[in-house]
């Protein structure tokens, strides 16, 4: 099976001349369709830079990123925006909902931008909303709902276009543990039932334990990779903690 996402020797350098800072160097990995991959590492390791580069919000200095059969490195700004619209979904730590739109309209937005017919939009929105359990909230505004509900809305918006690849940047960062668990379970279900491909950046070992595979980043380089395999979630959680303590940093975040 050909990989959905192929990352080859990606590097990212900030600044010019003598004052350069290397955020990422020589990163290569692949993600297959239907995988739920986590990216972990201490603060400043380059997790978010990697996600931004993969998500086409930022451009890499070196290397290639191939999603499906599209090479992102050679695309222009406008093309990238269209590519994002058609292929990618995002879930952000701070939700990024538009507060002048209702929950329904927030979810409708990416489909409207893709110029889908109104009837088809309605059907899709209803389906995704019941998947995340927010049917009753559809006509409320973001300021009327809780953080967990906002993140479900944001996730619905990311998934409603049935993107090839979903990027989540610390999606549970601002949630209490109950809401975080609910969200992660929904994502995990979705990954299994719909074979969605999800890539999630987190420094929370609990959130990471929902993934099938975890990439560890340290000082801008890929340092370790672990597979969940047949382990239960609790066992996987313990393994993650061990890896974190061995590479240093990050452990503090768990406490």
């Amino acid at each position, binding site marked *: 099976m050909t990989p959905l996402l192929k990352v080859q020797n990606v590097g990212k350098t900030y600044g010019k001349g003598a004052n350069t800072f290397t955020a990422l160097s020589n990163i290569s990995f692949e993600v297959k369709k239907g995988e739920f991959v986590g990216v972990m590492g201490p603060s400043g390791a380059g997790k978010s830079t990697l996600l931004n580069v993969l998500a086409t919000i930022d451009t890499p200095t070196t290397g290639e990123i191939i999603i499906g059969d599209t090479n992102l490195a050679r695309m222009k700004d406008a093309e990238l*925006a*269209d590519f994002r619209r058609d292929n990618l979904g995002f879930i952000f730590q701070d939700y990024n*909902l538009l507060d002048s739109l209702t929950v329904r*309209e927030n979810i409708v937005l990416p489909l*409207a931008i893709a110029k889908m017919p109104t009837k088809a939009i309605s059907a899709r929105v209803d389906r995704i909303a019941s998947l995340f359990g927010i049917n009753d909230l559809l006509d409320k*505004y973001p300021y009327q709902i809780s953080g967990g509900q906002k993140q479900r809305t944001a996730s619905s918006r990311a998934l409603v276009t049935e993107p090839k690849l979903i990027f989540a940047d610390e999606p549970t960062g601002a949630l209490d543990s109950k809401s975080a668990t609910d969200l992660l379970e929904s994502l995990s279900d979705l990954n299994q039932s719909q074979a969605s491909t999800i890539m999630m950046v987190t420094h929370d070992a609990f959130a990471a334990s929902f993934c099938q595979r975890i990439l560890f980043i340290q000082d801008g380089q890929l340092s370790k990779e672990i597979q969940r395999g047949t382990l239960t979630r609790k066992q996987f959680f313990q393994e993650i903690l061990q890896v974190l303590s061995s590479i240093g940093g990050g452990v503090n975040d768990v406490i």
Partner: protein
Amino acid sequence: MTLFSLARKNIQRNLSNYFLYIASMVFSIVIYFTFVTLKYNDDLSALKQSSQQIKGLMSASSVVLLFFIVIFMAYSNSFFMKKRKKEVALYSLLGVRKQKIGLMLFFENLVIGLVSLILGIVLGFFMSQGLLMILVRLMGYEIVGSLTFSVEALVNTTGIFTLLFLFTSLQGYRVIYQFKLIDLFHAEKQGEHIPRASLVAAVLGTALIAFGYYTAASDMFTSEIWRFFTVLGTPLMVIGVTIAGTYLLFHSVSVFVLTALKRATSWSWKGLNLIGVSQLLYRIRANAKSLSIIAILSATTITAGGGVFGMYYNAEATVRQMLPNTFMWKGETVEFSQQDVLYNEALSVKNLRVDNEFSFFEYTLLKESDYNRLAKLQGKDEELHIADGSTVLLDAAYDERFSHDFTGENFKLQNGDSFHVEKMYTESVLNFIAAGTVLVVNDQEFSTTDAEVMKMQVVGLDNDLKQQDVSKDIYKQLPSEQQETFSSVPQSYEDSLATVGALLFVGSFLGLVFLAATGSIIYFKILTEAEEDQAKYAILNKIGVNSKQILKTVAGQVAVIFSAPLIVGIVHSAFALLAFSQLFGMNITKPVILWMVAYSAIYFVYYIFTVRSFYKIVRQGN
């Protein structure tokens, strides 16, 4: 580091932020200084009788102007302060006392004020020179005024603006003392509520405007409404009703329309329509007051400008309507330059006293053959053949609302004779001044009518508007009792231009100022919102909206905010001008449309600038 140097460095480093503020200050000063300079100008006062009128006009206008400048400056100052709240908060967080921050802002204001005052006065001096030339042209004078620097204007401007700067500084102080540090950490507003439309307010708003329009459009001499509120009260009532209606229109009707648009998912769920309509809905109620003010200001500007421009445009036609001959006087002929002469006729007419059931007047009795000859000379190809006992009435001052239509009635003379009025024309062949209403009868009737015989001289010149010298020459030669009967096209034209030209100048000047200020108010307002919305557009970019689409939705939103008050203003003024043209009995459609197009064109330039700046701000967020 002293506070003063901190303030100075602040300005130096943030020059681009300050630019807009300083520019609007300089703009206000330039306008005011120019106006005051013209007011105190000696050349202008030297220009004969009309200068007194202009002086009065200028004084009244400068009060209006000042009032407007105060509003404008308060507005731009509050916009500027809003932008700097974060900076103030930072100082406060670092432990600088409010008193000190206030003092620093005060210094800043002082520096800005001084710079703009000097810039404004220098620019204003040059501008007043240019404008004086335009004014003199518009009034139809050939003199080119030389401008001396007016010390009075300098003192006046400096005094007024020092007061204004003091006032804005106090406004700044107030902001600092009201500001609470906690606000900084609650920068993110807890979602402004999306407004819900009130049906009652929407219906009431529409009804009020409809009523105002209906009243303005109805005939003021027959309408019950006009009778009820009286001729003075009705316009005031109409203005009040329209202003209230306009506010409700922006406050409720707009919400109604936008909500309906948003609900029509087959339209709104297409591309970025959803974003555009939601953003407008989200903002419109907070903006209702500004939008109404802009609509009313636009309406005022267009109405005043259109009306005055209409009068200016019609000045020549009005003169020609009343004076079909270049010169006319009663009595003997005189010697004058024969250049450009088209015709020079001596007519013998009879002076009549006519009584009828309405009034008695002096009329001029004219021979049919004389009429036909003059009509031909004046380029009218109508020949009259009047039956015995009948007459054709020529009344240039005829107004269907005031004058009696004599057609078909008998016109009784004092000596008992009477004529049957066959037709009535509003175009005469004799000048209204001296001749008044003219009765044309056939030559037979003319000779048998018993009345005082008079001699009348009529002269037609080519290029008649420029024949001022000939006009004066003839006037001088006439005996004093005949001077009263002398009428002259160039003289009347010059007199009416002097008044209407000055009116046009002041009207356009104030109109331009209002336009610039309304444009700037919208500009400031939209850009403030753009800064608040930066994050929203960054989100849109992340979920895959390309920059072209963002530009499109931005242009669309700004277009609605710009065009809504403009359209309302234009429609308001159309109805106001309808009443105006009715009152003065003038057809001003063409000049009014010209005026509206010019107004909209300048307004459009503001639109382009605003969209560009908006887009730039939004792109910075990505």
